[in-house]
């Protein structure tokens, strides 16, 4: 029997994996990919809650509309973020996070 707890724990574990990736990796593109993992973990939580909170036999579709918006915003964010990374690469010729220290005191 698969309960809401199972889905929430799966979402939490995926989020933890994404967070570990953001903290550990030093290539800026891989950090960005782990950020997308975290967003997807939140989406899974939302859809699970939407399915398990039934009103009159129907899921709560507000959660699914929220996920729709999150996916759209994430797609726009990836486009702009990758444009920034390409511009950064043009200027500095590196994607190694430790070489990007212009704002360091």
């Amino acid at each position, binding site marked *: *029997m*698969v*309960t*809401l*707890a199972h*889905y*929430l*724990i*799966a979402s*939490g*574990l*995926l989020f*933890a*994996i994404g967070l*570990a*990736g953001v*903290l*550990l*990796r030093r*290539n800026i*593109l*891989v950090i960005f*990919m*782990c950020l*997308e*993992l975290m967003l*997807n973990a939140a*989406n899974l939580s939302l*859809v*699970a809650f*939407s399915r*398990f909170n*039934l009103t009159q*036999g*129907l*899921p709560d*579709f*507000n959660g*699914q*509309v929220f*996920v*729709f*918006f999150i*996916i*759209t*915003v994430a*797609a*726009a964010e*990836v*486009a*702009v973020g*990758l*444009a*920034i*990374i*390409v*511009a950064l*690469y*043009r200027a500095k010729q590196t*994607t190694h996070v430790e070489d990007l220290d212009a704002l360091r005191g």
Partner: protein
Amino acid sequence: MQAILFWLFTGLMLLFGAGVVLFRNPVSSAMSLVGAFISLAGLFFLLEAFFIGIIQILVYAGAVMVLFLFIIMLLDLKAEAQRRLHVPAFLGGGAILAGFVWLLFDVVRSQPNFQFAPAPLSPDAGSDVERVGFLLFSQYNLAFQVIGLLLLVATLGVVILSKKELK
């Protein structure tokens, strides 16, 4: 059947997620992320959110990951060098991760409302695409229009950020 599919998709998703973090070659990380997205779409289908599942595959696996792979190929990134394992940092990070996972289990297990199987949907539920569409265009219409504007601004931003300096 639900349980088998749930464990299959969840196991694959977490394995691919770990692959994103652990592979040193960025192309391997990107392909693992595609696998994670598709497993996640499988979980969405299990939760009977068919519209969201298809959108996940179309937008995330189909557009976002293709963009990532384009950029990785364009920048011609090499695999990261093998790093020496720093044992104290490794143990500290492992302790923090273990603490987080323990807390996660503790919070989720302590809620009695979360321990039930999903109640069956009503038989005349209709298509979820139709219901989500109705909600989007009636209650969330303003947000929908604003998202369209956001996408326009993002497109403009990408074009401007990609321009070379004009001498």
